[in-house]
């Protein structure tokens, strides 16, 4: 990272907010790294599914069978790490959360409260709140 550019960003923020800000390098914790890895995995799976749909809709190419062994392997690894309960929630997020009209189905927690999960980051928060061992 170029030091001069960081100073320019800092200078811009100081002007906008009338403050003296600081730019600091922070080491990411293990927990943060795990969270980022999880988000990147979920984003990648979503991209694979989107690619599958686009190929089918636009080019009539059915990649579902081609992708299936990869997705099955990923599913198995998810079950391996998160167990059945965690894998079910992840499966719900990937396959059942979105309705065809674009609306989002909420999920209920153990007390019957509806929880809105809109992003992989929120999914991660729910997973570790239901089972903190996922983050250890």
């Amino acid at each position, binding site marked *: *990272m*170029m030091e001069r*550019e*960081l100073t*320019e*960003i*800092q*200078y*811009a*923020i100081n*002007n*906008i*907010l*009338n*403050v*003296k*800000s*600081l*730019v*600091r*390098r*922070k*080491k*990411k914790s293990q927990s943060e790294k795990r969270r980022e890895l999880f988000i990147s995995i979920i984003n990648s799976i979503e991209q694979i599914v989107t690619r599958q749909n686009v190929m089918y809709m636009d080019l009539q190419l059915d990649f579902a069978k081609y992708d299936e062994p990869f997705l099955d392997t990923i599913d198995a690894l998810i079950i391996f790490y998160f167990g059945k309960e965690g894998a079910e929630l992840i499966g719900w997020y990937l396959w059942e959360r979105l309705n065809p009209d674009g609306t989002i189905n*909420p999920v209920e*927690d153990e007390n019957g*409260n*509806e*929880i*809105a999960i809109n992003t992989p*980051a*929120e999914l991660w*928060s*729910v997973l570790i709140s239901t089972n903190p061992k996922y983050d250890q």
Partner: protein
Amino acid sequence: MVMLTKRTIPRAIFEPIIGLQASDLTGNEILLNLIKNETPLAIEEAFKAKKTFATIFEVNTSGYFLDIPKTYWINALQECIKLNLIEESYEECLRLNNLIEEIKKTSKKTIKQKHDGEGID
């Protein structure tokens, strides 16, 4: 609906970053929006957690974070109020004003406690 409370520190992506000038950024609408929305959230979270710095965003994926020290939180919130006034988001202005008052109250208490303690031997 149950809302998830822990804030995810956003990433501001500056592309290309090489040769970037502050003057390119001060009028950038995306950056202004990010600042307007994220600064109050960062300050509120830091204030509640009794932190001395509020982290606004990470610069790209660099691991460098932009922090605002506690002494400048009120200034930053006042500037956010100005940004919200342009958009006529009066409810948000009121919320930010209340947050400023809360921060001021806490600082006064801290100063008073320090002052009260001075005469004790």
